[in-house]
């Protein structure tokens, strides 16, 4: 009972994998936040004389083809990658929950329309939707953000809708109604709070996928535009130099891989702590 006092995200740290994954994520987020304090170099000042240097005491991860410090660019790249995918998912969750809850709440033709459109987008791979949207909006961080959030919209809409539909017939909703609760009270105080935990966990896991999607778009040159670094953009630049200076592509690649694995592991720990599967069973 004592453990219940802590919020679930903190409890996830008590699991060994959760602690390692959470520790990495915290480090990356802090590094991204305090990037200018952590490194003496700028991410965009070129020093051509120092190009293609391997790892050294001066440049811990080496330099890229323009002589820029790779670690510096990696840290600033974390800023781009994390903020773009994070904001995109937040946007996606907000719209998806609203849409899903409204569909489940009002039912009828509105529900059918939302379901059809959402299932239609669901049937395409996220990367395809994102590519089409970036092509329409134009490359850059804003375009990437919008594209990613639309690509994941179906997931959150469907999840919220399913949650609300099951919750709607719960006894405690009937009880609240029979004690005089109105629609707004039931929707905002009972239904949405109960649907929140599973949606947030799936948002967390989707953020991992979104980082890959952001890197992919960046790799295609559709994400953040140079000289602003993003992990995908850095890999793209490094791909032509794999044999000459392999570290240019290896380190951003590792950053993406490790961060995404960490998000998934932390998400797993969170699911276990939130006891979501057990709650799903009880709802049947």
């Amino acid at each position: 009972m004592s453990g219940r006092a802590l919020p679930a995200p903190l409890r996830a740290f008590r699991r060994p994998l959760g602690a390692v994954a959470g520790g990495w994520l915290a480090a990356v987020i802090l590094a991204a936040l305090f990037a200018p304090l952590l490194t003496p170099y700028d991410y965009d000042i070129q020093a051509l004389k120092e190009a293609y240097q391997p790892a050294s005491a001066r440049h811990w991860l080496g330099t890229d083809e323009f002589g820029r410090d790779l670690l510096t660019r990696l840290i600033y790249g974390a800023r781009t990658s994390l903020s773009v995918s994070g904001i995109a998912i937040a946007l996606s969750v907000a719209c998806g929950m609203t849409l899903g809850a409204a569909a489940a709440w009002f039912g009828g033709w509105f529900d059918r329309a939302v379901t059809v459109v959402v299932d239609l987008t669901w049937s395409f791979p996220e990367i395809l939707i994102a590519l089409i949207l970036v092509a329409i909006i134009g490359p850059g961080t804003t375009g990437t953000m919008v594209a990613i959030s639309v690509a994941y919209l179906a997931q959150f809409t469907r999840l919220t809708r399913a949650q609300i539909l099951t919750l709607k017939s719960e006894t405690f909703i009937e009880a609240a109604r029979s004690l005089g609760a109105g629609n707004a009270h039931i929707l905002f105080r009972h239904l949405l709070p109960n649907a929140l935990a599973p949606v947030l966990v799936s948002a967390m896991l989707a953020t991992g996928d979104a980082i890959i999607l952001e890197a992919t778009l960046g790799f295609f040159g559709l994400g953040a535009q140079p000289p602003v670094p993003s992990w995908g953009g850095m890999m793209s630049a490094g791909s032509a130099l794999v044999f000459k200076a392999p570290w240019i592509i290896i380190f951003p690649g590792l950053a993406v891989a490790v961060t995404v694995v960490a998000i998934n592991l932390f998400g797993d720990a969170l699911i276990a702590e939130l006891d979501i599967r057990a709650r799903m069973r009880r709802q049947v």
Partner: protein
Amino acid sequence: MSALLELSEVSVSIGRAALLERISLRLEPGHILGLVGESGSGKSLTAMAAMGLLPLIGGRVTGGTVRFDGQDIAAMTDGQRRALRGRRIGFVTQNPMTALDPVQRIGAQIDVVSRLHLGLSRQAARARTLDLLTQLRIPEAAAVAEAWPHQLSGGMKQRIVIAMALAGDPDLIVADEPTTALDVTVQAQIIQILGALVRERGLALLLITHDMGVVAQICDRVAVLYAGRLAEENAVDPIFAAPAHPYTRALIGCIPQEGMARGSLHGIPGAVPGALQFPPGCRFHPRCPQASALCRATVPPLTPHGAGIAACHHLSVEAR
């Protein structure tokens, strides 16, 4: 005394299925009316009708009137009906395990009822909640108010649900099988608590149950429902001493007695027919040991019988 809740000849349909037919009930302040019958006999539907909640499940009243404190519920606006629920009518649900919101603390769930209906401040509502919990003999009320639903036992949750029903200071409590999901010792406690509430506060209680044992313990009057019709209505003593309707007799036969011989506990063969397959005549006739040609052909009228009423063609025979 004037009735607090009065149903006169209420019929209810959902879609094309006529589920309740001409149900009449009367409940006075300080009294407990037991509504009994097997699953599917229309008990919960009658309660929904009494609270004006039928539209929620797609049902509608097709005849008769429901009056609460003299006012016709059908004539009220949605807002007026909502103001009635929780404030004047408290509802205790069937399954306490799922009747509480899992993501809200116990105290908050009770507080909100008195804040909504009595316009109390946060502090006043919490004080009232703690007071209610103490009255319901919940130890360490303050700790329980801070607890989450999953931390409480079933009996405790049912008391919380009762506290929620009482928080709006109602005149009538509708309890839909409040003890069905609980184990026997806890059942007895909950029944005791409900009985005490009626006596101490002068509340009226509409107790829906299929347990004749519970009825015998606390009810003043009993209405027996079968397949959407009233089979018998009477004060509790004559019901048990001289049940008029064969269905009532069969229900009483289902109560286990102390010292009963092994294998002598009776069930009622067959099941309540579905709403679309109600048999003609007396709806109980396919399962009735006394069924005659008359029962198969004509609906038995509700006729006075002692202090109550009953609907059976063989009443005169049985009354002897």
